């Protein structure tokens, strides 16, 4: 009831906020179009908006040529990211648990960091072939380091007071790790994962530039070399779309997993927990007050 009303308010609020932006864009487009058609800007450098819109229409609606490529690049990015993240987090957890492991692994991680991962593109293509494998591999290599560093930093920064409390309450090492260190590290881990996602996308696209048969990178290369700038920019837009899609998916996950950082989510989760608790053990008439008093 009140929820629906507040959401419609929010919608109206957003529309009101977005209106000036849209107006500005609408005012800029004809100026841009005019500047190109009068030869003020060369159309090879910056294509007129009409051409871009026509290309978008053609690529996305009329022919739909972009979709298979879009899906391929998306798959490569996600697969590479998943592998890179899995390896990075495993190594970070091992490094956090064992001082010795950290000492002997970190030099290699640092070497990997200062080497521009993109330099490996030709080598990775020689190793894994022209297909999706090489793109996944490059995405994984490139996304590894930011995730590793963030996860390790997160796992190593422990609040001294909380740790002392855990110890004094007789928590085991395992409990202290799982219930204290891991949750405390999660915000940083997610920050790393977000960076990793964008770098994974770069890795996949660059590998496609170098050598590939399908993917948005290939499409981009082809259109650019045909000097079809409108289609190039339309293709670039799909990369932006992948980037935004992945970023917001991760943001959503971040919000769900690290629920305690935002007040709204925290109260929702703690209320749900209190209700579950009450259903299980009974006896407490009001889970709401229970949640409130426990906070």
């Amino acid at each position, binding site marked *: 009831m009140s929820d629906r009303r507040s959401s419609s308010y929010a919608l109206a609020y957003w529309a009101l906020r977005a209106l*000036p*932006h849209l107006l*500005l864009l609408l005012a800029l487009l004809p100026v841009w179009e005019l500047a190109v058609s009068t030869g003020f800007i060369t159309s*090879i*450098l*910056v294509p007129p908006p009409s051409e871009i819109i026509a290309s978008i229409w053609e690529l996305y609606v009329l022919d739909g040529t972009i979709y298979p490529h879009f899906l391929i690049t998306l798959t490569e990015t996600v697969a590479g990211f998943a592998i890179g993240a899995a390896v990075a987090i495993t190594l970070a957890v091992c490094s956090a648990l*064992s*001082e*010795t492991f950290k*000492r*002997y692994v970190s*030099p290699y991680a640092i*070497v990997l960091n*200062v*080497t*521009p*991962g*993109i*330099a*490996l*593109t*030709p*080598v990775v*293509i*020689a*190793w894994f072939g022209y297909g999706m494998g090489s793109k996944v591999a490059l995405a994984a290599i490139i996304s590894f380091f930011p995730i590793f560093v963030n996860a390790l930093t997160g796992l190593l920064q422990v609040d001294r007071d909380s740790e002392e409390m855990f110890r004094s309450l007789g928590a085991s090492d395992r409990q202290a790790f799982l219930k204290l260190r891991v949750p405390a590290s999660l915000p940083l881990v997610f920050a790393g994962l977000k960076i990793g996602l*964008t770098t994974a*996308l*770069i890795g996949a*696209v*660059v590998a496609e*530039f*170098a050598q590939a048969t399908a993917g948005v*990178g290939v499409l*981009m*290369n082809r259109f*650019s*070399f045909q*000097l079809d*700038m409108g289609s*190039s*920019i339309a293709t*670039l837009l799909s*990369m*932006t779309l992948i*980037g*935004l899609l992945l*970023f917001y998916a991760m943001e959503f996950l971040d919000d769900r997993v690290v629920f305690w950082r935002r007040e709204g989510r925290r109260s929702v989760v703690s209320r749900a927990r209190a209700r579950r608790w009450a259903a299980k053990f009974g006896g407490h008439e009001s889970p709401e007050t229970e949640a409130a008093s426990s906070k």
Partner: protein
Amino acid sequence: MPAADADRGDRRSGLGLQQRRALNHAAIFLTIVGLWELGSRMGWLDPLFYPRPSNILRSFWLIYIENGNIWPEIYSTASLVLSGFVAGSVLGVSLGALVGLNGMVRRFVKPYVIVLEATPRIAVAPLLIAALGFGASSKIAIIMLVCFFPPFINTLSGVVNVDEQRLELFRSLGASKLQLMRKLVLPDALPVIMAGERLAMTSALSGALVAEFIQRDQGLGALIMTYTRNLNMASSFACIFTLTILGFLIFRFMEWLDRRIAFWNSEEGLQRVGARRRKRMEGLA
């Protein structure tokens, strides 16, 4: 605690902790390299694709000293990176300050910044090459583009996130706009800006490589491409390790620059500059 155990163990043995660790590092490294070499010689790893360490070393000798053909490529890549970085980051910082200091402009620019941030910048490379043609100009344009964003965004947020209370103090003491910029906004924002510059510098190298991969005319990227095409993997690994060294030098240089410019961000820098200033003050007195 494992670290404490290690300490005690080391005190009993004759060697110092540092030496023992260095020894362990060397042992691990040599074992990996040895296994690799052995694996290649025994035929477990195809030397065509996974070059032997000994061959990589020989390639180093070849491309650096005997043929010396890597030097012009290093020079070409490094000069591109440097010019693109300077141009891109100067543009980034100045535009970032311009946008950040004006609330109106900031509001209207923000959506575009979000969209552009999600776009992989390097992906614009083919477009720029098509627009500007083959050669140095399109390469520099790519590096500029890659170097533009981190300083731009960091400057923007650094300028915006000025401490409210200090701002109030400055205002109530009647600071002029120039004083506000010079004594409050700039010192507050510089560490963040420098972090952006460091990010830009690392991506500059990547940008240069991508441009060279696509153009395949000169530079380290083109060299790696050519060597890999000819399945001369040992040489392409020598080039990649060269990039590692280059990347390390760049990293160190940026760190040094950071300490020089934003000295108040580290204890050591504060003391160094503080002592110098104190001496100057004493000279005046």
